[in-house]
């Protein structure tokens, strides 16, 4: 399982990197941590003519937190999120979700930008981006733009990213301190891609009823999704057993999961409901 041949460049500036990506007729690929791309190269399911290494690009490995929210530089590693104490309050849902990503060694190299660009339907980071209405800042030869997560993930391993575009930052909107949240996923083994996962939050209004519910799922379908029917079942309600049961049922009804070697479609459908139930219980606790 040796990698196919390719050229390699390690540019020092973003514009240089974009120019390199643009120079190979869409056949060049950016490599950040490489934790998803390298296995694809090893199996030769990807064989780009040029790899553009992003590791020297300045400023992409910062976690910035201000009143607008959390900005994760594209080269921020899982490990950096794990180690950043500020995120416990600045974005506890992100922290909870990232705790499930892969294994120790992978977490030392895998990056948020790489995960978003790879767009695995069961990956946590795309799920958090969807759930939280993240903006994905990208730069290409026609300039910079911010793509809404909802417009970014087009299918399994397919995104709205142009071949010459590089993700520079993931922008997560500010996290109010009163916000309630839960993250639940279930995988065959620790660190595996989940058979299903649920990230959700809501803001309790003064009467204690939920508003602004956001419910995202991963691993059930070809991309991370928001479940608006579940959000509707939550909004305006007290999170009690009846609401939780309604939300769970709505979740099972809303998804169209796939069958694969790890789980049946019917199981995934039920699992989604179970995880919504459990995540909501944690949120309300």
């Amino acid at each position, binding site marked *: 399982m*040796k990698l196919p*041949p390719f050229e390699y460049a390690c540019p020092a500036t973003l514009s240089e990197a974009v120019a390199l990506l643009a120079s190979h007729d869409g056949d060049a690929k950016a490599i950040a941590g490489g934790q998803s791309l390298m296995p694809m190269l090893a199996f030769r399911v990807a064989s780009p003519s040029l790899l553009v290494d992003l590791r020297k690009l300045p400023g992409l490995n910062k976690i910035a937190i201000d009143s607008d929210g959390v900005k994760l530089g594209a080269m921020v590693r899982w490990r950096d999120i794990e180690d950043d104490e500020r995120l416990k309050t600045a974005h506890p849902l992100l922290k909870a979700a990232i705790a499930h990503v892969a294994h120790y060694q992978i977490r030392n190299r895998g990056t948020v930008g790489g995960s978003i660009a790879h767009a695995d339907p069961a990956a946590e980071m795309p799920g958090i981006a969807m759930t939280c209405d993240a903006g994905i800042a990208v730069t290409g030869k026609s300039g910079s733009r911010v793509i809404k997560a909802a417009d970014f993930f087009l299918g399994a391993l397919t995104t709205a990213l142009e071949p010459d575009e590089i993700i520079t930052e993931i922008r997560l909107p500010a996290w109010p301190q009163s916000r309630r949240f839960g993250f639940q996923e*279930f995988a065959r*083994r*620790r660190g595996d891609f989940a058979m299903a996962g649920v990230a959700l939050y809501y803001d309790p209004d003064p009467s204690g009823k939920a508003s602004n519910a956001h419910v995202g799922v991963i691993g059930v379908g070809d991309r991370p999704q928001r479940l608006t029917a579940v959000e509707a079942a939550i909004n305006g309600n007290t999170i009690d057993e009846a609401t939780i049961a309604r939300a769970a049922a709505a979740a099972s009804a809303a998804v169209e999961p796939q069958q694969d070697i*790890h789980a049946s479609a019917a*199981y995934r459908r039920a*699992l989604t409901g*179970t995880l919504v139930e459990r995540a909501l219980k944690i949120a309300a606790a």
Partner: protein
Amino acid sequence: MKNTFIGAPIERREDLRFLRGRGEYVDDLAPNGVLYAVILRSSVAHGRIKSIDTAAALKIPGVHTVITAKDMPGGPPIIPMRLQPLPEFKPFEQPVIAHDKVRYVGEPLAVVLATSAAIGEDALEAIAVEIDDLDPVGSREAAAKNKSLLFEPAGSNRSLVFHARKGDADAAFANAPYVRRERLKTGRHYGLTMEPRGVMAEWDAAKGRLTVSGAAKVPFFNRRILAKQIGLPEDSIEMIENDVGGGYGARGEFYPEDFLIPFAARHVNRPVKWIEDRRENLMAMNHARETEADIEIACERDGTIIGLRGEVHTDMGAYMRTNGAVGARNVVQFMAGPYRVPHVKLDSLLWMTNKTPVGTYRGPGRFESSFYIERLLDMVAEDLGIDRVDLRRRNLVASAEQPYPIASVQPTNANDQYDSGDYREALERCLTEIGWAEKSKLQGKLIDGRYHGFAVGCFVEGGAAGPKESARLAVNDDGTITVFMGSSAVGQGVETVFAQIAADALEIPMDRIRHVYHGSTNTVSDGYGAYHSRSIVMGGSAVLDATKNFHAAIREAGAKKLGCDASDIKIGEDRVSGPGGKSFALAELAGLTAEGAFLNHKHTYSYGTHAAHITVDAQLGEVRIVDYVVVQDVGRIVNPLTLRGQVIGSLVQGLGGAMLEHLQYDDHGQFLTGTLADYLLPTAGDFPNLRCFVTDNHPSPINPLGAKGAGEGGIVAAGGVMANAVANALQSFGAQPRQLPLTPTYIWELVQAGQRQAAE
């Protein structure tokens, strides 16, 4: 013989190099001028080869040669069976490279030799293969239709039926007060080794000598096959056993590459190295275990077992490989496990399918049959209202019944008997260790969202396959001693345990045993290797015999040197002395060597009990182990440290088979589990809380050490025990697992079915 080291937890000698990264595995060898072999494998499950065009591949810089079946005059050799080489199997044996048909995804089509493995892989993409698709046989059910035949001349996809018989089962069933019939099945697993396979061959044209590195398990046998296939005398071939990264029954059998790489080296007159990659490994190394049983058990109302009857079907994959029939035979021969079953009529049907061929994997047939008998016993207990443990107590073979004859198997004329032991004692110890009396009160209870389940299962483990093992001792220049073994190392720690045995037999400190060499064909005249949990019994006993001959040789040499009778010679740690204070240093006899052997046609049967306490999250279908205890009696403990490693290590493999591992194909024979993200192995997070207690209360009467094989007992009962524990936990849903692995989906389906039934 002293007993200083045998039985002591001696830290292993081999660890000193492994821990420093100084092991030498076959991929670590890099002779000058070596070419890397990369194998083109079929992506078609069943088809007729029309053409293989290598022209474009040969144009790639760095590609030296591409070998296909056409390069083998007289056609590619066929790999003969090592075990159960019945004439009936002949039509189903595998050629070393596909030449007319391809029969599984992964079958070798061509061998590229290049200056690097990467270039070799580039060349694979440039080879144009035309194959006419044939109807794939994707399951044993499809095989039974015989519509599409893997081997047209054979006329059937069924290669054989084994018949296991004891007593008169039909008569017993006719009169039985209670009978239960079940359909149960086990998943497709394999003995995945962390080091993928590898072969490096060097051809010395001037001397006409072939050196093959990467040998494992049965180097002497494989040399015999290779010599015949490649047309060389056996003594012109040296098989070298390097450090071997795991065996488990699968590694070291004669595979296609074991011919292709030596052939290639001779063909191009350069060293050639092939290192299997993990994707290849998943589809090229022997698969195992995929069986389905349609069986019934007959009992008295008090639970006394009367008989077992029925059929077991094995999905053999595409060819009968070297030891491919062992599992299918064992599954019926050992269905009764440690239980007294007077009447047995079990047929084992071997079905050829378009999948990777099967071979043995640790506890072959025993893991499967233990799942079957243990599931049946728990169902019987429930039906008859008998306590599960009492049912087992009632039916375990008693020590007074030993040696206990088991079902004989035709057409191989296998007649065997258990050698010795007190099975009941192991059961009681296991119950005590897990605290069954108190803790099992939790069975079926829902606590904090999880249902508690318990199970207990008993097993026997066969060991000590004959016919022979050899050992040789030699005096080194400095008067230390080197031990040469016909046994092979696959990670079990043979360098340490044989040094323990030899030191005690020679009555010297262990550090006087300088080296233990093993496995390679240059160690002893005739070696047999590592399989069927035989190393300590066979190899260890051979060391004892070699010691006798070694001492005799020293006495003889000493007598000559000192001018006295051999009987007056005394052998010390490093000196040899005679009457009248005359003595000399053992080092003076440097080069003196003596060989010994142990011949044996009987098998040892270690035995024991597994017990599990688990919890199940019924919504997720998730199982967690709270406590799992294995008690095993091995006759004679040589090294409790390595023994515990064998028991816990094999247990976790068994738990992997029970819960995670499953090689899957679609109906077209396409392989679906070609990565380690698809074929799920246990990791450190999955199965904590495992304990084992090994005893040597009942030595085997059939070898001088009293030892029994110990490498497989941990795996055998794991499937049945886990399935029974799940059934026990989910009793309120009426859950009865009938297949392995126990995936979350499957457990959830059992719960759903139970809920639907309750609602109706």
